[in-house]
């Protein structure tokens, strides 16, 4: 029996240990009109106040504001696993009277991240590639509309081949149960009609237990998620303290699956499908971008880039991208920064340990 046992069944544990050491990088984009509860939901999802320094612009400021892309980072640790979450926000989306092409900056941003990764991947020093690609986009749909609005459709069509889209109905406590169902169905029909590809949940393996399969099915059927966010803890009308919103006619509980799909969204995003989202971004969306990019370079029409490169045939091994000398040094600087940061962390840990042992030593001396 021992002869047949090779021992690689323990590989997943090795992977687990390695990833715990390395930590997770995840970039989440949030998009949608203002006033749909995006910030509150993000704070509720990650139980942290990511929007502390935010100032909601006044009506005057909005009249002249254009779409900006904002990035916020937060490092979270739970159970020994570090997650570096980067949140990409799109304030100003859908605010103006004329929102034509207001999604173009967002598309450009997503493609820039792909381009950066492509450069890094094709570069010489691939030790510490920073993955700043957008792994998931939570798109907020208004609960007050009759489904997707023209602006929603335009945005989704512009980004659906470039990022994993999870549609979400914001402020879902404005809807009665029947209305929620009807709206979800309408949105699903519209997505199919407009041929918009949202993130598809992977099928369960047949050997998963029934409970997991059932949960998965439930999750799939509740897309788009109808969510309510809250960072306040209130009494639910009785004595129980819950995270929710208190109205004069009742209290909405954010973590109650009968009230909204918040738990489903959190489970899906954080607990079960985080890794899959990253993989789909890398294997499907990024590869698609890369293929398109390289193909367009090989075409005679792409004169601009072809003139800079000295390639005359399509090849994946040689680097067709215009490698500006600056990019290399920038990368080196970034790598050095990372190393410095890590060394500093280790130093701090050692110092803390020394102080602790010193204090212990003093204690034992005085005794």
């Amino acid at each position, binding site marked *: 029996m021992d002869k047949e046992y090779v021992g690689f069944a323990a590989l997943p544990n090795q992977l687990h240990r390695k990833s715990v050491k390395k930590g997770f990088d995840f970039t989440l984009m949030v998009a949608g009109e203002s006033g749909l509860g995006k910030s509150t939901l993000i704070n509720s999802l990650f139980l942290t106040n990511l929007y502390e320094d935010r100032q909601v612009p*006044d009506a005057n400021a909005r009249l002249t504001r254009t779409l900006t892309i904002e990035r916020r980072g937060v490092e979270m640790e739970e159970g020994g696993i570090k997650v570096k979450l980067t949140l990409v926000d799109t304030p100003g989306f859908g605010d103006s*009277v004329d929102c034509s092409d207001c999604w173009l900056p967002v598309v450009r941003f997503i493609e820039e991240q792909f381009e950066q990764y492509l450069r890094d991947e094709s570069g010489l020093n691939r030790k510490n590639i920073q993955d700043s690609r957008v792994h998931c986009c939570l798109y907020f749909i208004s609960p007050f509309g009759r489904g997707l609005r023209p602006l929603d459709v335009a945005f989704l069509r512009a980004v659906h081949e470039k990022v994993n889209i999870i549609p979400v109905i914001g402020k879902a406590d404005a809807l009665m*149960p029947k209305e929620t169902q009807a709206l979800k169905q309408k949105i699903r029909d519209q997505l199919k009609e407009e041929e918009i590809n949202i993130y598809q949940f992977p099928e369960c393996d047949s050997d998963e237990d029934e409970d997991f399969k059932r949960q998965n099915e439930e999750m799939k059927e509740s897309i788009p998620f109808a969510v309510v966010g809250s960072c306040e803890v209130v009494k639910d009308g009785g004595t129980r303290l819950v995270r929710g919103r208190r109205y004069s006619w009742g209290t909405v509980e954010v973590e109650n699956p009968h009230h909204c799909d918040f738990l489903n969204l959190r489970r899906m995003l954080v607990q079960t499908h985080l890794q899959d989202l990253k993989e789909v971004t890398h294997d499907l969306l990024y590869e698609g971008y890369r293929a398109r990019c390289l193909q367009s370079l090989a075409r005679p029409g792409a004169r601009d880039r072809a003139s800079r490169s000295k390639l005359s045939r399509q090849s994946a091994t040689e680097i067709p991208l215009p490698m500006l000398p600056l990019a290399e040094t920038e990368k080196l600087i970034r790598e050095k920064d990372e190393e410095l940061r890590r060394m500093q962390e280790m130093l701090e840990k050692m110092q803390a340990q020394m102080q602790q042992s010193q204090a212990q030593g003093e204690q034992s001396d005085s005794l």
Partner: protein
Amino acid sequence: MDTLRQSPSPCSSRPSSPRTPPFEMFGPVGIEAVLDQLKIKAMKTGFEFNIMVVGQSGLGKSTMVNTLFKSKVWKSAMPSLEVPTPQTLELHSVSHVIEEKGLKLKLTVTDTPGFGDQINNDKCWDPVLGYINQQYEQYLQEELLITRQRHIPDTRVHCCVYFVPPTGHCLRPLDIEFLRRLCRTVNVVPVIARADSLTIEEREAFRSRIQQNLKTHCIEVYPQKCFDEDINDSILNGKIREQIPFAVVGADQEHLVNGRCVLGRKTKWGIIEVENIAHCEFLLLRDLLIRSHLQDLKDITHNVHYENYRVIRLNEGSGAVAQVVERSP
């Protein structure tokens, strides 16, 4: 139009009782009886009221109209998702005659489906302004005729209810652009639509921000300060102005609450009663539009907005007058 008839001030509700004039020299003459005569006349001719509802689709405009007038002015009970939002802004009007205690009210509701739903909403207020001015024009033409009708049919918009989406932040650029332009032409009453998604604190904060926005952009909504006639009006209207925009919820389904049948929305965490002042301010809107200020809305439309339009038109050239003179027999 009988120019001698003055609107009874909304806050004065005199009990009417016909008194036969006593046979003394220094006694009341009995002029009070005129009020009763007016009332009887009004009962006979009935009232007209034209209201326009403006706002993005899904904000509960049709439901609100149904709830206000307690009748299915619009045929569909639940604003159906099958009705596609039109590509451009259309306006369509529906007229109903509602009767209560012998008094007939001819209610015309103009809806604006497609408002603010497009990607580019620039100039989406033009069709609305065009419609309002068209009604003024129609009335003007009738007024300029040599042989006028006894009672000119009044299709002018007396009140425009503007539905602000409950974002909780402040007015959007589209709201400001629209309100700025329309306040000069028609009485505008802004409301916070679908207010059941805001808690009481959020409503108050939202309301005060909206009031600030309105002040900053010099938008005078109804009841306008400049048209307050006397101190009583100012006090009454001042109170209303503090509470504008009302946070409203509309519903046309009835539910049983504590043994009573109420209009409301039933959710898993409670029932929102439309006519409960602790839940929403629908009653304030209804009282303003129907119970206390209906006549005032009509008067301001006639005495101020229509007159402004008339002055502009007549100044544009006596061509308008000449046309009409030729037309009538």
